[in-house]
């Protein structure tokens, strides 16, 4: 091979085989790279605008420049990222809608684990890391070589909450239920004492089944994510609870999609379940003459406390991006989740602040003083669980969903539904 060609080949080899995401020796963070990084996100509408404002602020105070590109809904963003990985044309960083997607990208060897940056000179001290809500860090960690490693980084997080209509509760003489049994009793009381629909929701795996399961100490999958764990006494109790509400007590109106929202907003329903960011949508759907103050409470507790699911999005850095771009992406992510920014983003978007120190920030305290509902989602975080970080979750979720549906429609007993699902899920996890 001729000289220049040889040199070229060697350069390429070195670049390809060198460590992805070159990190400076611990101690001194190097100067910021002057690069423009591409950031694919799925925040639309008003939230997209607010995110844009944050990014403008970052760009004006940093050498690293962020170019945000809106890619559609989370589903569309996911498809775009998958296509990009297949075509080899990934951006520098992107939003992911939770541990399953992170796990999939990770399995395709498309990501640089965030742990690498956290441990680097640009990273965070142990104290700083401890400021983050542990549940959120768990939500972003995957077992790598047996060790729990941060693969993605939290950003916009919400959790599932119980919504209620205080007027109806007062009319029925019911207080806000704190345990699952109290909720069931409350629903029965509402049914007997008022004309309102006690509970209206669109049942799926995330609303009720998983939180109930977790609140009993159960789990959907084994901790190494290789076997189904939901066909347990806790899992059966979780499903039986909903089945009892629907088929025995008949205190539930089952809806499709967002169809539960309008009746609740119109004051016809006592309880609903949704994520913490639903409040503005509900308020918007209220008729002008019949407004009420939407009540928000954590999901009821089981013997092992109250649990809830984490929704929203996290951030990932792609391994195929140039090293300095990856570093720039981390610098941006770190800034985004500093106390000031996380408070600002939370107040602007309705997502939760990610750090404990946010509670004491003046802006946040002022907002909480004005309306204590701001704290409900945050307080529920300590019982929050991320969705199982299995790359096969996309295939598992419909199976579980079918089990829930079959039981709720009375087509299958709880035992049979879960047993069938367990077998299918184990087959999926066993793969080839």
């Amino acid at each position: 091979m001729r000289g220049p060609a040889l040199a070229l080949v060697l350069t390429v080899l070195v670049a390809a085989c060198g460590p992805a995401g070159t990190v400076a020796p611990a101690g001194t963070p190097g100067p910021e790279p002057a690069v423009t990084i591409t950031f694919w996100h799925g925040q639309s509408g008003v939230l997209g605008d607010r995110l844009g404002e944050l990014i403008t602020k970052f760009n004006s105070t940093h050498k690293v420049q962020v170019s945000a590109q809106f890619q559609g809904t989370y589903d569309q963003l996911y498809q775009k990222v998958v296509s990009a990985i297949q075509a080899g044309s990934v951006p520098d960083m992107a939003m992911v809608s939770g541990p399953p997607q992170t796990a999939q990208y990770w399995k395709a060897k498309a990501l640089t684990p965030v742990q690498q940056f956290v441990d680097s000179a640009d990273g965070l001290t142990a104290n700083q890391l401890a400021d983050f809500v542990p549940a959120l860090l768990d939500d972003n960690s995957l077992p790598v070589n047996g060790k729990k490693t941060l693969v993605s980084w939290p950003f916009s997080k919400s959790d599932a909450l119980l919504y209620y209509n205080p007027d109806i509760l007062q009319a029925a003489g019911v207080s806000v239920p704190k345990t699952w049994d109290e909720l069931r009793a409350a629903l029965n009381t509402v049914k007997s004492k008022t004309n309102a629909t006690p509970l209206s929701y669109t049942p799926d795996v995330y609303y009720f089944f998983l939180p109930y399961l977790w609140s009993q100490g159960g789990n959907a999958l084994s901790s190494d994510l290789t076997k189904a764990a939901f066909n347990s006494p806790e899992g059966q109790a979780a499903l039986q609870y909903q089945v009892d509400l629907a088929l025995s007590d008949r205190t539930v109106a089952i809806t499709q999609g967002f169809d539960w929202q309008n009746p609740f907003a119109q004051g016809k329903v006592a309880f609903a379940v949704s994520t913490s960011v639903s409040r503005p949508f509900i308020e918007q759907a209220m008729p002008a003459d019949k407004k009420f103050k939407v009540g928000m409470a954590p999901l009821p507790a089981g013997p092992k406390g109250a649990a809830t699911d984490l929704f929203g999005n996290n951030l990932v850095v792609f391994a195929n991006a140039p090293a300095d771009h990856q570093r720039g992406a981390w610098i941006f992510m770190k800034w985004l989740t500093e106390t000031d920014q996380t408070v600002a983003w939370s107040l602007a978007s309705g997502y939760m602040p990610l750090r404990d120190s946010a509670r004491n920030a003046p802006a946040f305290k002022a907002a909480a003083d004005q309306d204590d509902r701001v704290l409900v989602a945050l307080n529920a975080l300590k019982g929050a669980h991320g969705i199982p970080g299995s790359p096969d979750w996309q295939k598992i979720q419909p199976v579980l969903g079918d089990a829930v549906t079959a039981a709720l429609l009375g087509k299958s007993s709880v035992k049979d539904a879960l047993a069938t699902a367990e077998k299918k899920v184990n087959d999926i996890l066993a793969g080839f």
Partner: protein
Amino acid sequence: MSVRARRLGLYVLMGGAGLVMAFPFLWMLSTSLKTEAEATSFPPSVFPAQWLFVNYLDAWRAAPFGRYFLNSGIMAVGQVLLSIATASLAAYALARIRVPGRGFIFGALLATLVIPPEVTLIPNYIAMQRLGWYNTYLALIIPFGASVFNVFLLRQAFLQLPGELYEAAVLEGCGHLRFLWRFAMPLSRPTLAIVALLTAIRAWNDFQWPLIITDTADLRPIQVGLTIFRSDVSTNFQLLMAGSVMAVAPVAVVFFVAQRQFIQGIARAGIRG
């Protein structure tokens, strides 16, 4: 039964069937003019209390309908032009040029009709990525730039051209290409019109392929845009219906205007199979 009674009965039957056919469209129009509250009231009202034409404006603004229509238009026009070009050339060759093995080639082309679209969907998706055509107009137009159906129809038309015409043209120094362009195609205008119409309608109504290879609003055609719109408006059904009316209207108008050619075209294609 008297003839008059029979006739009346016939009209009633046909009118009834017509109502069943048209009913969803009427319902679509009715809902599109209601307020959100009225649209989501139960039992549903037949006629809107107020005729809110502003819903169309709201729907138009709620999603980039203009862009969606433009994309569908580009896709349709692109496919029509390319498909007519390739089909005319191929049909002419099969009908009038002494190409060895043309019978076999024609048979092979017909055989490709049994390949169901799902089989080609996934590989074409991968191919679009590898070619860098993902989320581009190229991906929306080129794969549909040749249709065996169109070749078939045009071949039939070209076969019916009188042989003497060609002989005469040859004496004037006309080659095949010239003959095709100056004589064969102009004389087959009705068939070309049908081919153009059918191709355009198919392109306008296409859904599955554009769904998977467009990713951004600036490439999305109207049918895909409509389903995205459905998930965006969630409970604003009146806006969704308004959007649907807008998506249906262009084709309905073209259909009313070109009704005869349309139906003739379908029928003629149908008879010979």
